[in-house]
């Protein structure tokens, strides 16, 4: 094969418009390790809200064969046997470190899509394709030094391939030092690499689809990549057909810029212990609506309606089960805490039934739009709107300064009997003056 051919093979797998997927390694555990060096090199898990199940595992825990989402009560004994350290989740800390990581990454590109709390896509269009490995290393080292979080970088021509390249970097199947660029591999190498990876590892191929694929004889990523797209579309969906095209280096999934505001805001939590009284539910719902309203204002959005929901504990089969939700539309889209809380409580009162042990409630803000483009209606009173805006920004300022929840509506309660269980939570190292890391 001539060198010209080799070049075109590389371009074929998508070095035309390269993008990178940067993914933090076991992010929550890594966050905890930044401030607690004792956690380095030992098995650590982070548990979900209410210490329910495992949501992040260190590599030592993965090596022990402990699975993700395993309920804690089932593995507690095993964990003690192996000296696994289990921490409650500290989302204030993870959120802060995530914002730092994303902000640093944004400086490496002109376009960034934040895909989740610990991963994002970077547009690398226009960069010299031969230096992308070096660039990936610079990204990895900068994040590791400046924040202390280890990351893997996958580089390829489509989002699906970049995800896969990241997987290869993480599993050390290709690339080096946690960076993998598919543009550096020729067709033979790609084909060999893909033949060794199960199809279920591809972005968008869940366990259910992979079972069905398996029945058709499609076991590996290479099988999927070389499958007939038309046949796949007929048997599955246009989504999976798109996946095949992406695996062949044809971009089908656009990069979505960070500016796209959230379409909905949800704040919900399980309670530490079940509650039965309407008063307790009112407190929790008012509190969640307050937090959701804060997020809404941060985005510069307003909500058109509020959805509130409650449910009992589905795992307690002996208890009577109940779950219900209600959407309460607002006369005028708003970001006013009092109006949102009012609507949420109105919904709650409509769905509350006595005699149940409630385990979870939540508030969902829907129909979000930018406040700037809000349409004025007949009901508007400009003086009232301005007063509400001033009150809300004062409330946010106080809560930012004194800590979240310093100033709330009376309805959201002070005692929080429903507050979640977090028995082994680390301090809020970066968001509370009283909990800073201590050095001797």
């Amino acid at each position, binding site marked *: 094969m001539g060198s010209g051919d080799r070049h075109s093979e590389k371009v074929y797998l998508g070095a035309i418009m390269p993008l990178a997927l940067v993914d933090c390694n076991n992010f929550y555990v890594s966050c905890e390790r930044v*401030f607690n*060096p*004792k956690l*380095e090199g030992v098995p650590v898990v982070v548990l979900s809200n209410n210490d329910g199940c495992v949501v992040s595992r260190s590599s030592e825990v993965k090596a022990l064969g402990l699975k993700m989402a395993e309920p804690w009560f089932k593995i507690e004994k095993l964990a003690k046997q192996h000296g696994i350290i289990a921490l409650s989740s500290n989302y204030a800390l993870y959120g802060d470190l995530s914002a*730092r*990581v994303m*902000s*640093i990454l944004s400086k490496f590109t002109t376009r960034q899509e934040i895909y989740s709390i610990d991963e994002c896509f970077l547009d690398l269009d226009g960069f010299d394709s031969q230096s992308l490995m070096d660039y990936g290393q610079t990204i990895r080292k*900068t994040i590791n*030094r*400046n*924040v*202390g979080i280890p990351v893997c970088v996958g580089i390829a021509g489509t989002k699906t391939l970049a995800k896969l390249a990241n997987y290869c970097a993480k599993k050390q199947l290709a690339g080096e030092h946690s960076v993998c660029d598919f543009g550096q591999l020729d067709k033979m190498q790609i084909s060999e690499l893909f033949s060794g990876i199960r199809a279920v590892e591809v972005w968008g191929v869940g366990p259910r689809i992979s079972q069905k694929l398996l029945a058709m004889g499609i076991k590996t990523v290479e099988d999927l990549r070389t499958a007939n797209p038309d046949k796949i579309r007929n048997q599955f969906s246009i989504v999976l057909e798109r996946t095949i095209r992406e695996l062949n280096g044809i971009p089908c999934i656009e990069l979505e810029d960070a500016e796209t505001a959230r379409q909905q805001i949800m704040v919900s939590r399980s309670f530490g212990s079940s509650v039965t009284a309407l008063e307790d539910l009112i407190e929790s719902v008012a509190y969640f609506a307050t937090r959701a309203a804060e997020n809404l204002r941060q985005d*510069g959005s307003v909500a058109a309606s509020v959805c509130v929901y409650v449910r009992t504990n589905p795992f307690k089969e002996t208890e009577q089960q109940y779950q219900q939700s209600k959407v*309460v*539309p*607002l*006369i005028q889209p708003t970001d006013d805490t*009092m*109006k949102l*809380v*009012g*609507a949420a*409580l*109105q919904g709650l009162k409509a769905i509350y039934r006595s005699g149940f042990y409630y385990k979870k409630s939540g508030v969902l803000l829907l129909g979000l739009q930018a*406040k*700037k*483009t*809000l*349409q*004025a*209606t*007949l009901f508007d009173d400009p003086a009232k*709107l*301005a007063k509400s*805006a*001033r009150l*809300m*920004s004062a409330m*946010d*300022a106080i809560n*930012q300064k004194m800590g979240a929840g310093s100033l709330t*509506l*009376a*309805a959201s309660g002070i005692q929080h009997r429903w507050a979640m269980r977090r028995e082994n939570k680390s301090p809020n*190292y*970066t968001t509370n*003056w009283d909990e*800073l*890391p*201590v*050095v*001797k």
Partner: protein
Amino acid sequence: MTLPFYPSIIMKLTIQPPTIMLPEMGNSSIRMPLFSHKVAAGFPSPADDYIEGWLNLNEYLVPHQEATFFVRAKGNSMVGAGIFDGNLLVVDKSLIPSSGNIVIAVIDSELTVKRLLKDNGKIVLKAENARFKDIELKEGQELKVWGVVTATVRKFI
């Protein structure tokens, strides 16, 4: 507290009102003007042309926002460097530590603040207090610097 009442059915407006752009409201950052004066109504101050900008303590203390963390000093091992018990330390993780810097280092899985001295390949973490021993790194022992201390903040009130 009485809660406002909201009808669960929205009145449908058949005629869409015109789109009105509302001004953005609220700005949480506080900045100190370089100098300020009272404005006499109707008469602009001749000094207005000379205002150069505003001093921002955050910009001064935290040039690398994403890489900067605050930690609390405990004990007296660094009093000679002006770091007292309970002081707030500004730590920049993005800086590459060089000899003479005050650093946060990881020693025995604990974070410690000391002055870093490098001399002919020998690395010493020096306390700024004669009552504390220097920590000398042995051959093959890797120094883990967590960050470089760039400032200390001490409030009197």
